[in-house]
């Protein structure tokens, strides 16, 4: 039964990673941009949840407001900065987004200080389901998993079944050809970037009540997301899902079984996958 709880935690963590990694992999795959600041958007989300929950008194109001703010932030950054880097080497993307991390971290410290904060779990979900006589599982964690799954399904439908998704896929497989055929690529890129930022921020917002809100939280998760994207294959949403669950479960079980080496476990997993498949599990080309 102990293991069931660990596996549930691993799945929940994996699904959360998926929300982050799917945005990252879309931005890599479609725009060709490596975005180190993705972890900062997760942090921005968590602090938005903190601030808006204090302001409005409810996480349910904070969530939609926060997503709107994140979309606006993403669109603004794409328009002002990221847009200038499409034609440039990855090196410049790495450095510019590295600069953004410093800016976001310091602004966070300026506005909220360096303390660890907590966001209360909404009362409606603040109870546990009993599994056995002694063990129970918090409903809020199940809620996180459910929301992540719903978003994954929505993303799948949008990308597979809608006209917008068709344009995104066209941009992914051949940018120039799509543009020649009349797809407004700059607009698609702005949309993809804003979507990625919103997904990362949303992940930060719903995770805030369980993970608490603390300085440097974005950096920690960013590298794990990179591992997810590399294992899954850049640009592949399916790959991101499989890899995120794999990493989520490996990391959670690693912490229980080999606490000293759990930090390294995910990187070892990545090394093994790369020896076997240098372009990830689900890379199409």
């Amino acid at each position, binding site marked *: 039964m102990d293991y069931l709880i660990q596996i549930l935690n691993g799945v929940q963590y994996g699904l959360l990673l998926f929300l982050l990694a799917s945005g990252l992999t879309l931005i890599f795959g479609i725009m060709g941009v*490596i975005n180190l600041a993705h972890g900062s958007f997760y942090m921005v989300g968590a602090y938005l949840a903190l601030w808006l929950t204090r302001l409005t008194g409810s996480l349910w109001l904070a969530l939609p407001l926060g997503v709107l703010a994140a979309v606006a932030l993403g669109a603004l950054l794409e328009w002002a900065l990221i847009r200038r880097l499409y034609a440039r080497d990855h090196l410049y993307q790495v*450095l510019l987004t590295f600069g953004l991390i410093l800016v*976001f971290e*310091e602004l966070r410290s300026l506005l909220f200080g360096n303390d660890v904060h907590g966001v209360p779990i909404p009362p409606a979900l603040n109870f546990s389901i009993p599994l056995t006589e002694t063990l129970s599982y918090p409903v809020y964690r199940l809620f996180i998993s459910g929301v992540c799954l719903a978003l994954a399904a929505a993303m799948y439908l949008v990308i597979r079944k809608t006209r917008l998704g068709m344009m995104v896929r066209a941009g992914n497989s051949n940018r120039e050809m799509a543009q020649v055929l009349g797809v407004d690529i700059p607009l698609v890129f702005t949309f993809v970037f804003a979507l990625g930022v919103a997904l990362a921020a949303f992940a930060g917002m719903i995770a805030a009540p369980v993970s608490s809100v603390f300085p440097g939280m974005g950096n920690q998760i960013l590298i794990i997301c990179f591992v997810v994207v590399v294992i899954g294959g850049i640009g592949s949403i399916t790959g991101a899902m499989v890899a995120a669950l794999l990493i989520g479960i490996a990391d959670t079980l690693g912490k229980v079984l080999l606490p000293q080496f759990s930090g390294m476990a995910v990187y070892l997993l990545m090394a093994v996958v*790369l020896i076997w498949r240098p372009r990830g599990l689900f890379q199409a080309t």
Partner: protein
Amino acid sequence: MQDSDRLIRWLIVLGAVCLALFPLAGSTFYLQLLTKIMIMAIFAMSLDLIVGYTGLVSLGQSAYFGFAAYMLALASPKGAAASLWLTLPGALAATAALSLAIGLLVLRTAGIYFIMVTLAFAQMLYYLFHDTGLGGGSDGIYIHVRPSLALGDFNPVNLADHTHFYYLVFALMLGAYLLLRAVIASPFGRVLVAIRENPVRVRSLGFQVFNYKLGAFVLAGTLAGLAGYLSACQFGFVNPEILSWHYSGIVLMMLLLGGMGRLYGAVIGAFAFILVQELFSLEALFGDFARRWQLSMGVFIVLVVLLLPRGLSDLVERLGRGAAKRAAG
């Protein structure tokens, strides 16, 4: 073109002479600051070999820097000096072996994958030292006494002395510069540049691209290790932060700021970056924002990427070319 090349050469010699004479005039504070900058210059030059010349953007160079620093820390006896003659070659050999092992894996990938995989391996090392008790965990370990250069009773250079240490670092920086220059001018180095320009073509000419890349990767890792060893000597302290990817990002930024693919650009970048960082943390200039120097630094980095993508040395070269043209006309 030739005039500007000559100008650059004179500027390099002038800079070297200034650095050689500096201890005669400077205070201890600036002596130590310059020592730190020269160590970072070695670090940035090592990265230039793979990023600037071979075209492999690595975001994990801090792994080799930090690993060599840890090797010194672990090899140093408590309260006594380790011998530099043993620990330096030992640390460099271990770092070379590490970069060979990592290089064999990461060089199978390219582009964005390469960036992320180098990063992930550096992160793996970070957790190795952070989570296990191997090197004092997250608290790090102290090196109480700097290594000694003594050979029996003969001990001409005392590294505990700031000036002596300064000259050792200065000599090693010059050595690293001359070594890398020779490497780049050699047939091996020419192939590296060709790989940067067009790897497929190089391969079709019959070169084993992978082996050349691996050679460059190991040499760069080893030189980064030299910088890490010296840095551990200087500060007498290592902790996992020197392995973190922030450190890799900072050294990459130094390289971009100075200008890639030039070697002396890496040196200029190290100077400019650390001096700007010191400037931003001056309370006299920035008041309360001095404590928030990371904010100014972040904005500075964004602006350099957007406005000065070819670095300061390109600016100097263009000015030099302009001056030469005016003198000729």
